[in-house]
């Protein structure tokens, strides 16, 4: 395998990782600040993609669509927090699991009720199609490079938000001691709604951006939800830094595993069997990675707190 292919696959891994980070950062924020296990996070991803597809189709502008997607997901997040989640903070975690599981069903079937059973059309805007030629004569899609760029920009933005702003200060305070910041006079319910909407908006952004490369259909948020959980657990729950590192690790390991495991097994097995075994192992790879990491570091790589 050539070096250029390796570099291209690394880029692919990074791109997958940055999109996972958008999902995972919201999930880990919500858990860090409110201690909530939100299974419905994938639904916001779907809401973002659907709203973007619908608005892009009617306005013809991907950017307007993208804005609408983020707004719709953030709005859905705020509403869910106000109507449902708010009542569950003082309840056991398991009740939250049940409630957010119910929300998955409601969002999925509600979306199908509104938009029908057929997948929706959403393509990258024409000014982002095509490819650039990288050194080593590798062609790489512009849109994927843009995704990497957006991912990096969002990570920096989140870092600044949390370390430099008043809101960030409150988020950090909320992560370390929830009772305390209430006592300090911070309007905690407003903070919670805001954080929830922020997390949902980030998921919506991921859904909208990735939706242009994938099938916009009911249930699209579930596989990515599971991956995002893997990411935040590897990184250490509640830690944005951990989410970033975990996302890149999962993205790169998954991509390289899919390419190189079948090739590896071909060295000592008949080709047809090797591809099957390699592909099967590649599917299990990130879960193996996660189990190994947790076996040695039971609180993830960057545990924010206990």
């Amino acid at each position: 395998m050539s070096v250029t292919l390796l570099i291209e696959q690394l880029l692919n891994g990074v791109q997958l990782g940055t999109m996972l980070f958008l999902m995972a950062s919201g999930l880990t924020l919500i858990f860090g600040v409110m201690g909530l296990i939100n299974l419905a996070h994938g639904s916001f991803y779907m809401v973002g993609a659907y709203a973007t597809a619908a608005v892009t189709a009617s306005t013809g502008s991907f950017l307007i669509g993208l804005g609408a997607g983020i707004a719709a997901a953030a709005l859905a997040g705020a509403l869910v927090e106000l109507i449902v989640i708010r009542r569950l903070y003082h309840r056991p975690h398991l009740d939250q699991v049940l409630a957010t599981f119910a929300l998955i069903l409601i969002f999925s079937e509600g979306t199908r009720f509104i938009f029908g059973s057929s997948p929706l059309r959403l393509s990258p805007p024409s000014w982002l199609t095509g490819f650039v030629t990288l050194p080593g004569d590798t062609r790489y899609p512009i849109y994927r490079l843009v995704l990497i760029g957006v991912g990096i920009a969002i990570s920096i933005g989140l870092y600044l938000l949390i370390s430099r702003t008043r809101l960030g200060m409150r988020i950090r305070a909320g992560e370390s001691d929830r009772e305390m910041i209430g006592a300090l006079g911070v309007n905690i319910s407003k903070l919670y709604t805001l954080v929830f909407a922020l997390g949902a908006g980030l998921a919506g952004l991921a859904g909208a951006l990735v939706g242009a490369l994938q099938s916009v259909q009911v249930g699209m948020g579930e596989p990515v939800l599971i991956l995002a959980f893997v990411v935040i657990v590897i990184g250490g729950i509640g830690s944005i830094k951990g989410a970033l590192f975990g996302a890149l690790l999962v993205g790169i390991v998954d991509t390289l595993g899919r390419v190189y495991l079948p090739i590896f097994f071909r060295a000592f097995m008949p080709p047809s069997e090797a591809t099957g075994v390699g592909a099967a192992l590649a599917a299990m790879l990130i879960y193996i990675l996660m189990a190994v990491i947790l076996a040695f570091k039971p609180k993830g790589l960057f545990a924010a707190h206990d």
Partner: protein
Amino acid sequence: MINNTSSGVAKISLTPNADSHFSRKGIVQITLLGLLLLLPVTAYFLGHIYYVNLASRITIIAMAAVGLNLAIGYGGMVSFGHAAYFGLGGYVAGISAYHAFDFTPFMTWPFSVPGSDNLLVVWLAAAILCGLLALAIGAISLRTTGVYFIMITLAFAQMIYYFANSWPTYGGEDGLPIYLRNGLPFVDTTNALSYFLICFAGLVLAMAITSRLMKSRFGAALTMARLNDVRLATAGISPYPIRLIAFVISAVITGLAGALYADLNGFVSPTMLSWHFSGELMVIVILGGVGRLYGPLAGAILFVMMETLLGGITQYWQLFLGLVLLGVVLFAKHGVMGWLAGRELNE
């Protein structure tokens, strides 16, 4: 705060009179179990085989949830991967029947293991294998707590799911049919009522074991491990092996339910191993009432009945299922059993 995950689960009643049959709780419990037994028997003699099979399905799902409840409710170990044991139990039944049907050995090295269509053999094998799997998974997973435990159990289940999905020998994603339901000596297991009664016996046994276990010294230690493991440790008992044993027993119960489910459906497939099923099982436990002996039964009855009834009414039935589940969480604290039978005494 992560430790919160394990708190808030209902406590078992330690007062001797709590289970008096004449309390509101006692009446609800006996009614539930009685209805589950009487309705299918009546349906059978009226010639409605379908309702007998539906009751078998409810019973088996309830049994699987009883197993999970032991881990979640009594042990505070929130496993998001119990589909692994349910599916493994199912695959033991499927693979065993497959080899018995083909007259091929399951393995030839280092010693020859033939297939079998005897349910007792199937159950024994399912129990042993699920126990061993849970021992391995539990030994690693119990090093973690809280959400990490939830996710690592999910990770192991996902590994097994993907393995079953892509391993061609036993059908991969297509699954494995069981042509003839595995049998028992002197019992016609293909008869719907006989098979229901077998399942019912399994459920009652699983509940009895849970109940006895939690009243024993072991159960007291497990409760203490959940509530305050430091205190348990100062009493000279290490919480880790206590939890591990409870986890294994929980997995074995769920695995046996899986074996029963495979024979009921005449089919086993990777969907039995999927995270969706783990989630559903968890939902059933929470729906019924976490850490309550009859909670899984109440949850399973409600969940399967809704699935069946709503499906006939509208193609958007899952939307309404979601709304009902949400309503239960918001308005019926402590699950259906909490609502029907009142709160546990020392909750």
